[in-house]
């Protein structure tokens, strides 16, 4: 857990707040019931909001002292209770209650947008909430000063109901608009998160959006003199009360989640393999967005189960990280929804239950990473060898071969000049014959080192030449657009040349079909003959070298050779 923990509030503070909350709620309840003009349902609905908000706020403050969300929720609960003072028949509490009439709605807006860290995330959100507070408090007082809200109002300065009505319309419509904007903010955040939310969190956010929508509907209908206003008001109060309950249910859910750890234990004991481990953990944590990373000390990096390096998310990424350790060393990291940080016990329990399986996963990731490393170094060795052979071929071509050709020409010309001397001519001719033989040998060596025609002119031209030298007629079909990467060309060339050499030696084939094609990101080389078959498909000797070349490029080589059924060699190499 990465948390710069602020100390949770002391129990006595929490108890004091709880008592104050109950007293306030009880007081407002008594006031409401004492007022004959107020229906009992209305009073109960206010308690329905105020008590759960204070309770949920207390739990939130205790569990997440770093977040101001708890304090905000408590404030919302108290503000709701205080607004009930408007039911009082004495002027002072009545006036105070009136001042708090609209404020709770804005505090709830603030809570919704500040979830879960307790702070607003952008300038835009801060401006929205600030305007809403101004509208809820300043315009409320202005409205009261202009006598927009009935008798017993101590702040009445003049009697201008028309102006008061205008102020109220502006107040309600502007807060409605801000609530709708708030729904937009919630929706945008959810889309940007780009990963599934944990179910309790999704439920909670939905309740926020619904609450905002109801507040907007309530305030708009308040300006329109709708006949069903009372129904809308009650529905709104009912909906607003759902959020703190959803919040508490989420926490309860988390307690229940710990029983899922037991299931996890059973599941992992039956099958401690890393396969499906992520899904099992995601189920136990009820976080579908969960991913795992394993620590590879040899590479000093985090990696996924396939050994591919991964970066742990930073503190600003909207993801949280829980490190799992064993004997003081990193084993794995759970990358999860930050909401899970509310449930450190659950994370610890799941981490402990999955210990062995995670260690297995770590070993598998390490093995895969080693394998990848090995593959890479094999490719590098083959490539280095290839480069060296290319260099040697070039040196032979530009050096010894050229000199021998020039020397041979020199001898020929000398022989022409010495045409009268039969013995000298004969000796020169013999020497020239030696040179020709040397040239032939050199040519065979150099071509074996590297087919220069391949780098110069591409696969098709190079294959035409070896096809021409095959004793069995070759149907050659090369369908490629443009050149392939050099190492792939070289590997493909050797697959064909080695196969044709094998066919010439063993197959007694009548015809050979050679096909080179590229489908999407796969180069396929196929050599098929109609010979005697029965070749050693265990990739013995010659074929092993070919398979090495092909596998070094992440490809694979397969051979089919049923006795009497010809031989088919197929190489597939990925090629971007």
């Amino acid at each position, binding site marked *: 857990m990465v948390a710069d923990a602020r100390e949770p509030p002391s129990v006595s503070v929490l108890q004091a707040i709880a008592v104050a909350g109950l007293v306030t709620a009880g007081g407002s309840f008594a006031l409401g019931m004492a007022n004959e003009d107020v229906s009992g349902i209305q009073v109960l609905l206010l308690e329905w909001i105020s008590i759960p908000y204070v309770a949920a706020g207390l739990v939130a403050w205790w569990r997440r002292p770093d977040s101001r969300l708890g304090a905000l929720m408590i404030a919302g609960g108290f503000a709701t209770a205080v607004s009930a003072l408007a039911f009082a028949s004495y002027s002072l509490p009545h006036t105070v209650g009136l001042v708090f009439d609209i404020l709770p709605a804005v505090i709830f807006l603030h809570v919704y947008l500040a979830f879960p860290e307790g702070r607003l995330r952008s300038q835009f959100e801060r401006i929205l909430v600030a305007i809403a507070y101004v509208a809820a408090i300043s315009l409320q007082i202005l409205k009261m000063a202009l006598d927009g809200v009935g008798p017993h109002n101590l702040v009445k300065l003049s009697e201008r109901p028309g102006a008061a009505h205008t102020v109220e319309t502006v107040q309600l419509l502007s807060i409605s608009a801000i609530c709708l904007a708030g729904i937009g903010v919630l929706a945008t955040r959810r889309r940007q998160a780009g990963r599934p939310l944990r179910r309790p969190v999704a439920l909670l956010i939905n309740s926020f959006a619904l609450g905002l929508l109801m507040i907007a509907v309530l305030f708009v209908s308040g300006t329109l003199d709708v006949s069903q206003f009372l129904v809308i008001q009650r529905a709104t109060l009912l909906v607003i009360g759902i959020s703190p309950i959803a919040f508490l249910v989420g926490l309860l859910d988390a307690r229940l989640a710990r029983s899922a750890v037991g299931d996890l234990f059973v599941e992992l004991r039956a099958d401690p393999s890393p396969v499906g481990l992520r899904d099992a953990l995601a189920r136990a944590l009820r976080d579908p967005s969960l991913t795992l990373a394993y620590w590879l000390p040899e590479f000093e990096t985090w990696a996924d189960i396939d050994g591919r390096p991964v970066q742990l998310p930073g503190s600003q990424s909207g993801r949280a990280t829980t490190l799992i350790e064993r004997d003081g060393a990193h084993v794995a990291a759970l990358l999860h929804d930050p909401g899970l940080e509310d449930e450190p016990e659950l994370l610890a329990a799941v981490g402990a239950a999955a210990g062995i399986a995670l260690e297995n996963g770590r070993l598998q990731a390490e093995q895969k990473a080693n394998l990848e490393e090995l593959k890479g170094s094999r490719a590098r060795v083959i490539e280095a060898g290839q480069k060296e052979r290319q260099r040697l071929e070039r040196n032979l071509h530009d050096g010894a071969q050229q000199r021998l050709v020039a020397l041979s*020409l020199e001898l020929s010309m000398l022989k022409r000049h010495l045409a009268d001397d039969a013995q000298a001519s004969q000796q020169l001719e013999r020497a*020239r014959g030696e040179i020709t033989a040397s*040239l032939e040998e050199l040519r065979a060596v150099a*071509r074996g080192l590297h087919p*220069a025609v391949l780098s110069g002119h591409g696969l098709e*031209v190079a294959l035409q*030449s070896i096809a021409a030298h095959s004793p069995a007629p070759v149907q050659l079909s090369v369908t490629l657009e443009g050149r392939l990467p050099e190492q792939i060309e070289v590997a493909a060339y050797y697959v064909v040349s080695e196969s044709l050499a094998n066919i010439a030696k063993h197959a007694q084939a009548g015809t050979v079909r050679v096909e080179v094609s590229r489908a999407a990101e796969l180069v396929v080389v196929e050599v098929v003959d109609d010979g005697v078959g029965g070749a050693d498909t265990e990739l013995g000797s010659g074929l092993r070298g070919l398979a090495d070349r092909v596998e070094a490029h992440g490809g694979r080589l397969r051979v089919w050779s049923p006795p009497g059924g010809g031989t088919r060699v197929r190489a597939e190499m990925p090629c971007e």
Partner: protein
Amino acid sequence: MRVAIAEDSVLLREGLARLLGEAGFDVVGQCGTGDDLLLKVRSYTPDVVIVDIRLPPTHSDEGLRAALEIREKYPSVGVLVLSQYVELGLALKLLADSAEGVGYLLKDRISDVDDFLAAVRRVADGGSALDPLIVSALISRQRADDPLARLTAREREVLELMATGSSNQGIADKLVITLRAVEKYVSSIFGKLGLPSSGSESRRVLAVLLFLQS
């Protein structure tokens, strides 16, 4: 006869120039790159160029590209390509659709001075010269229902020489037979292989080559 040479090995280039000079050719240009060769061709319009297939700077296909460009832009200039290896694929690329005024020989052939000079003259005159290695590889391959089996030993010899670009007179000289006899063999071969007998000697090179390759 005017000839230009592109060969990056100085030793070989000068040997070639001396050989051609002594044989009565007018060596109008010697250079080491394909670009220089194109300049020389533009300035001197030689009858024939001799070009190494691997030239600087990358020693991959510069020589071949210069040869193809000359064939396209200056069809009257014969092009004889020399190489340390002979590749059928390259020969097909070089000939494309005409064997007129084109040759492709192994470098070793230079020291068979008489044959080499004859090949240079043939290419300069619009004929062709294809390395025997290519032809023999094609002729010796096995074929199902081999039409070549219908040829007599002598006819096979004539076919091989024909495919390398030898003229009828050249074949007659080589096999020490009369020109009349060569003509008889040629028409018999074309008949047996089912090829249309075309007049020009360079055109039949391509026909025979394509037949052998298929």
